[in-house]
């Protein structure tokens, strides 16, 4: 999975590698909103539309409840049964386990965002690898970021233990001697007796300072240089863990589920037209070609991206003022709501009264075809309204310092309708034979992956 890669830039980049590489790319339609990382990953993993898998963003609400659902809580808690059941029952890892061909397969998932392996169905993998947080956090002796290795099988647990030294060496390939890397004992986790958590702590250099803001500034600069290498690190870790689980019974398959973050990071920081983004995309394609030397590879994306030279200022209400958004110099008050800035959409959830998706499901300055709403939101989770930005803008709460730049994802408005930008992502297959299933929508990827040999 290459995060935030639209069909057109992928197709264009692939042409630079020659026309005979792999099958495709085939265009996949994303006929729903919001088009963000959690929603896209869940759609790919489960083969269900968002209204069915119920993952509506990083944060969302059920109607009549003020308790937020958060995908980032997935690594720490057994998820809320009702909302997360469709995900757990239909995840890619679960369906692989239910397929007689792959029942004994070794499955390793890895991503640079903590919730993504769980959208793949971490509970049914052998090992899932991810950072506990997205940036360094305070600990007893400074700031550090923890990489979690969740083992859900005995052989997965043994593979992590057997790989500790080599993984440490791979990690030191990313940082200089001012960092301190160690395997540490993690806090107790709650995924049951079959689960064991391992954790590698990356202590950042002391010169990064004492404040979280300053440390995160240094972290941001580190990622600017290293984010492609971070993806490569996770690829190498997956390969190491799979190797450590050999031999597998009956020649079962080794399956890697990786979400690569570099395109998403550079897409947000510099925009998909930037040289940095092109570099990340090229690196992702190159990595896929390298892996295709030893296995079949399927490449796709969770959503597209667009350059956002402009921005719309969103401001939460304070001192009795209503929340507001400024578009084209016009200040607009927003109805009272629980607000979620989800990707580049501003979503409002009203806890009062029923919501009629036909009349109120999507509303704002931006017209979105109402027929898209039923594909997008579970009836119990329809927001009161969504503000979609125009094609050049991101919605941000940056006040004085926000002057646009970079890029954003998600759906946007263009000329009063839902823009086709962000509406398609690629499916590219590197295999010996033509793919037996070529889907037309993102929700068809899981079936195509299951058919891959």
């Amino acid at each position, binding site marked *: 999975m290459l995060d935030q890669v639209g069909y057109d830039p992928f197709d264009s980049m692939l042409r630079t590698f020659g026309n005979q590489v792999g099958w495709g790319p085939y265009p996949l339609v994303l006929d729903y909103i919001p088009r963000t990382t959690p929603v896209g990953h869940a759609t790919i993993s489960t083969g269900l539309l968002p209204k069915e898998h119920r993952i509506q963003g990083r944060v969302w609400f059920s109607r009549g409840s003020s308790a937020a659902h958060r995908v980032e809580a997935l690594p720490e808690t057994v998820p809320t049964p009702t909302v997360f059941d469709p995900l757990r029952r239909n995840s890619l890892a679960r369906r692989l386990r239910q397929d007689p061909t792959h029942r004994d397969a070794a499955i390793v998932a890895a991503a640079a965002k903590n919730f993504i392996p769980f959208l793949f169905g971490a509970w049914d993998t052998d090992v899932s690898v991810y950072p506990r947080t997205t940036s360094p956090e305070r600990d007893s002796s400074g700031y550090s970021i923890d990489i979690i290795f969740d083992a859900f099988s005995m052989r997965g647990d043994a593979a992590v233990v057997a790989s500790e030294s080599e993984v440490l060496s791979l990690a030191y390939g990313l940082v200089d001697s001012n960092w301190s890397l160690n395997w540490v004992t993690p806090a107790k986790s709650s995924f049951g007796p079959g689960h064991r958590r391992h954790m590698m702590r990356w202590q950042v250099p002391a010169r990064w300072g004492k404040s979280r803001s300053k440390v995160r500034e240094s972290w941001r600069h580190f990622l600017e240089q290293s984010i492609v290498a971070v993806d490569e690190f996770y690829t190498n870790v997956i390969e190491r863990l799979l190797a450590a689980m050999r031999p597998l019974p009956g020649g079962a398959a080794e399956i890697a589920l990786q979400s690569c973050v570099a395109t998403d990071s550079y897409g947000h920081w510099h925009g998909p037209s930037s040289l940095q983004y092109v570099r990340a995309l090229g690196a992702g394609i190159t990595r896929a070609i390298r892996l295709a030397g030893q296995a079949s590879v399927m490449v796709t994306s969770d959503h597209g991206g667009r350059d956002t030279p402009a921005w719309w200022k969103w401001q939460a209400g304070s001192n009795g003022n209503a929340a507001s958004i400024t578009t084209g110099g016009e*200040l607009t008050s927003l109805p009272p709501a629980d607000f979620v800035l989800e990707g580049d959409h501003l979503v409002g959830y009203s806890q009062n009264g029923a919501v009629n998706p036909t009349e109120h499901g999507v509303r704002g300055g931006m017209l979105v075809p109402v027929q898209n709403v039923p594909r997008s939101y579970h009836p119990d989770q329809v927001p009161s309204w969504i503000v979609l930005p125009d094609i050049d803008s991101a919605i941000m709460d940056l006040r004085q310092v926000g002057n646009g730049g970079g890029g954003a994802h998600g759906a946007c408005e263009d000329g009063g309708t839902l823009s086709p930008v962000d509406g398609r992502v690629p499916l590219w297959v590197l295999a010996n034979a033509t793919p037996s299933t070529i889907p037309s929508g993102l929700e068809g990827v899981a079936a195509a992956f299951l058919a891959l040999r």
Partner: protein
Amino acid sequence: MSTERMRGDQVGGKRQPPPVIGGVLEDESVASTMALYEALRRPPGSDLEEVVARLRSWREEVMALLDDLLGPDEARSLFDALLRGQIVRRADLATRVEQVLRANIELVRAGG
């Protein structure tokens, strides 16, 4: 379904500060750095009470950032001045804080 832009007079309802869930305001680093940035850039006549309240609510984080940027002695005296509502003309510091803020915002936008 209306395709008009929402206007303030269309929405009505009780005006109240909404809970901010999700978006960047929830982020500790962005919120604390923003508080310091706004205090340094406070124009004459702005709402002093709110600026000081935000500084106080992020006291530990703001102090740690100032300490990183200026050293402990200067950080303490400058923070005290800001809490008293004094306008601090330190363009160099404001620029540096803005750089930190931008980096933090970018991390939030990219989800880390």
